[in-house]
C-alpha cells in the first residue's frame, strides 16, 4: 500500500476540450477517497490519468513518494475496477483472477493459494470454473474486486464499480466494500456520481465539477459546511433550497425576507467574516431537512406562509413543495408530523425557519460567504 498525491493535474483532449484543470488532491495510505461529481465533471479522467491510461497535459502524479507521471500503466502497480467489462469474457473466473498473477510469473501453487484465500473472503469459491457471462451482476462485481485484491496493488482505483447494480444489491455491496477496504488496508480512490455511496463509504470526498475541485472534506463536513454553492446544492437529497437573499436592517437588527416573513438573523453572524457589500447579489440556502412545518395560525416569528405546490411521499418521509410567492421551497417532514397537514394542492401551509440553519452564498462567485450558524456552534461545543 502507498499514498497517492496529485498536483495540479490538467488534461486537455483533442479539439481543445479541457477535462481537468489544476486538480490537486492526496490520498493518504489506507484512506478511502471518493471523487464525486456530476457526469462530465472529470472524475473518470482523473482516475484514468492516475492509472496511466491517459497522458496528463500538465501536473504531477506521485505514488508512494515516486513521480509516476510518465510511467506506463504496468509500471505503476495499481488495481482498477470498472463498472463492467472488467472481466475477460473468454476466460474462466479462475483464469480471470489468475491473470495478473501469471503476468508476474507466479508459480501455479502460489496462484492457487492466493486465489483460494481471496475467493473465500469474497465468497466466490463456487464460481471459479464458470465464465463471466454465467454470473449475475453482483457476482461479476465481486470477481472484479477479487481481481484487484489478488495482488499487492499500491492503490485501488474504482470507477463506479457498483453503480449499474440494482438498489438492493448496491446497498449490500456498499457495506461489503467498506469492510473489504478496512480488512485489506487498501488505499482507495473511488469514482462515483452517487452521493449516497460517497457519503456512506468515504473517509474524505473530493467534489469535482467541470474539471475543477469544488471542495475536499469529510462527508459530514461536506454536508454541513459546503464551501461553494455547487457543493451545497449537489450534496443532500432533496437538494438545498436556494433563493435570492433579501437582506434588510432595522433598529440594528438584520432580517432576511422570505415571502412576507422577515427572519431575524444573528447580528454577529452577519458581521463576522467577509464583509457583505450592499451592491452584490447573495443567495440564501435552506436545507429541506432543516425546515419544519407549523400550523398557519401559529405566532412564530420565523413563520413563512405558502401554498402546497406538490407533495412527494418517500415512505418514511414526506417532502412538501411549498409555493412561496412564486418560489418553490421544499420542506421535509417525518411521516408522523406530516399527518397533521393538508396534502391537497393549493392548500395553505406554513413552515418555520431556524435562523441558525441558513446559509448565505455569493451569487456571482458561487462561494459560501456564511456557513449556517449551527455548524460553528457545534464546533464551539466540541472545543469547550
Amino acid at each position, binding site marked *: 500500500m502507498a499514498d497517492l498525491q496529485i498536483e495540479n493535474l490538467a488534461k486537455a483532449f*483533442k479539439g481543445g476540450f479541457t477535462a481537468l484543470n489544476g486538480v490537486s488532491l492526496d490520498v493518504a495510505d489506507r484512506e478511502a477517497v471518493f471523487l464525486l461529481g456530476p457526469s462530465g465533471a472529470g472524475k473518470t479522467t482523473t482516475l484514468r490519468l492516475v*492509472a*496511466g*491510461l491517459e497522458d496528463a497535459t500538465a501536473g504531477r502524479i506521485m505514488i508512494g513518494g515516486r513521480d509516476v507521471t510518465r510511467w*506506463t*500503466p*504496468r509500471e*505503476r*502497480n*495499481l*488495481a*482498477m475496477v*470498472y463498472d463492467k*467489462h*472488467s472481466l*475477460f*469474457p*473468454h476466460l474462466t473466473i479462475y483464469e480471470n483472477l489468475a*491473470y*495478473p498473477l501469471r*503476468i*508476474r510469473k507466479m508459480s501455479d501453487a502460489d496462484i492457487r493459494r492466493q486465489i483460494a484465500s481471496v475467493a473465500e473472503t469474497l465468497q466466490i469459491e463456487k464460481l471459479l470454473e464458470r465464465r463471466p457471462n454465467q454470473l449475475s451482476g453482483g457476482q461479476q462485481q465481486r470477481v472484479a474486486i477479487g*481481481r484487484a485484491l489478488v*495482488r499487492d496493488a499500491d492503490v485501488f*482505483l474504482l470507477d463506479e464499480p457498483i453503480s449499474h447494480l440494482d438498489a438492493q444489491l448496491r446497498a449490500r455491496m456498499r457495506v461489503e466494500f467498506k469492510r473489504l477496504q478496512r480488512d485489506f488496508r487498501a488505499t482507495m480512490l473511488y469514482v462515483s456520481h452517487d452521493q449516497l455511496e460517497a457519503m456512506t463509504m468515504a473517509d474524505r470526498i473530493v467534489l469535482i465539477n467541470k474539471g475543477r475541485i469544488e471542495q475536499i472534506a469529510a462527508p459530514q463536513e461536506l454536508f454541513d459546511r459546503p464551501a461553494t454553492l455547487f457543493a451545497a446544492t449537489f450534496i443532500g437529497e432533496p437538494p438545498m433550497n436556494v433563493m435570492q437573499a433579501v437582506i434588510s436592517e432595522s433598529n440594528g437588527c438584520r432580517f432576511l425576507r422570505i415571502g412576507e416573513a422577515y427572519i431575524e438573523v444573528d447580528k454577529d453572524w452577519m458581521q463576522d467574516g467577509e464583509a457583505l457589500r450592499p451592491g452584490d447579489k447573495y443567495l440564501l440556502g435552506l436545507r429541506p431537512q432543516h425546515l419544519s412545518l407549523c400550523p398557519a395560525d401559529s405566532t412564530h416569528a420565523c413563520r413563512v406562509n405558502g401554498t402546497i405546490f406538490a407533495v412527494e411521499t418517500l415512505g418514511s418521509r414526506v417532502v412538501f413543495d411549498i409555493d412561496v410567492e412564486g418560489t418553490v421551497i421544499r420542506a421535509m417532514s417525518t411521516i408522523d408530523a406530516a399527518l397533521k397537514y393538508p396534502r391537497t394542492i393549493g392548500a395553505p401551509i406554513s413552515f418555520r425557519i431556524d435562523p441558525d440553519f441558513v446559509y448565505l452564498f455569493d451569487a456571482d462567485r458561487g462561494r459560501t460567504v456564511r456557513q449556517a450558524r449551527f455548524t460553528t456552534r457545534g464546533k464551539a461545543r466540541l472545543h469547550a
Partner: protein
Amino acid sequence: MKKLSSMPESPSAPPVQRNWWVYVVLILVCVVNFLPYLRVVMTGFMDGATSSSATPIWFFTPSLEAFDYLIFEKGIMKNFFNSVVVSLASTFFSVTIGMFCAYALARYDFPGRDDVSFWVLTNRMMPPVAVLIPIFVTFQTAGLLDTLLGLIILYTAMQLPFVVWMLTGYFRDIPRRYEESAMVDGDTWFAAFRKVTLPIMAPSITATAIFVMILSWNEFAFATFLTSNQAKTMPPAIMAYSIGADIKWNVLGAAVVLITAPLILFVLLLQRQLISGLSQGVVRK
C-alpha cells in the same frame, strides 16, 4: 367497487405461434437454390454424349470420364494446388496485416483517420478490370507474371480493404476496457492485444478469413490474365479445359464439383464459427 383478489395475477404469456408456411417458403427457397447446383453435379458424372444431348436426361449411368480427363489428361490437380497455396497465403497475409490496420483505425485517434478509412472503402468501389492493364504491365516489369508469388501479392492487396473494413467495425465493438484492464494488471500493450483482444475477436477474424479465402479461391479475372502455365489457378483452368470450340458440359460439371467441394466442406466444418463471427457485435451489446 370491485374487490381485488388477494394475489395480483400477471397476464399469461402470449401463445406461441406456429407458422408452418414459413417452412414451406424455406423449403421452396432451398429447392430453387439447390436444383441448378444439383444439375451441374449430375452433369459432371455424365459421359460426353449424355451431357451434350439436346433434351435433358435425368437418368443415366454415372461415368467418371470427365474427372479422368481433368485429373489425368489435363493435370488439374496442379491448378488445384496453386489455388490452395494462393488463397491460403493471401488470406493469411491480408488478415494479419489487415488486423493491425483495423486495430489502429478502431483504437487510435490520429489526424486523417476518417480519410484513411474512407479511402480503404473506396478501393473496393472501383471495378478490378479497370486496373487490369496497369497491373499486367507492372507484373511484366517485375517478373511476376505467371508466378504464385505475384498472385499472392495481388490478392493480399485486393482483400486488404475488405479485411480492414470488416475488422474495424468488430474491433470498435470490443470495449477498450478489456485491454486497459490487462495493461493496468501489468501487461504491455502487445501482450494485452494478444491475450485479450485477439481471443475475443477470434470468431470475427475467422469469419472474415473465410470470406476472404472464398473470394481469393474464386477470383477469375486477374488469374486469367496474369497466369498462363505455371501459376494457373482453378477458375481460369476450368474455363480453359472445358470451353474450347464447343462447351464440354460434363467437364465443366466435374470442374465445378472439384472447385466447390473443398469450399463446401470447409464452410460446413466452420459453420458455427462463421455464424457466430458474423453476428458478433450485432447480437452482443
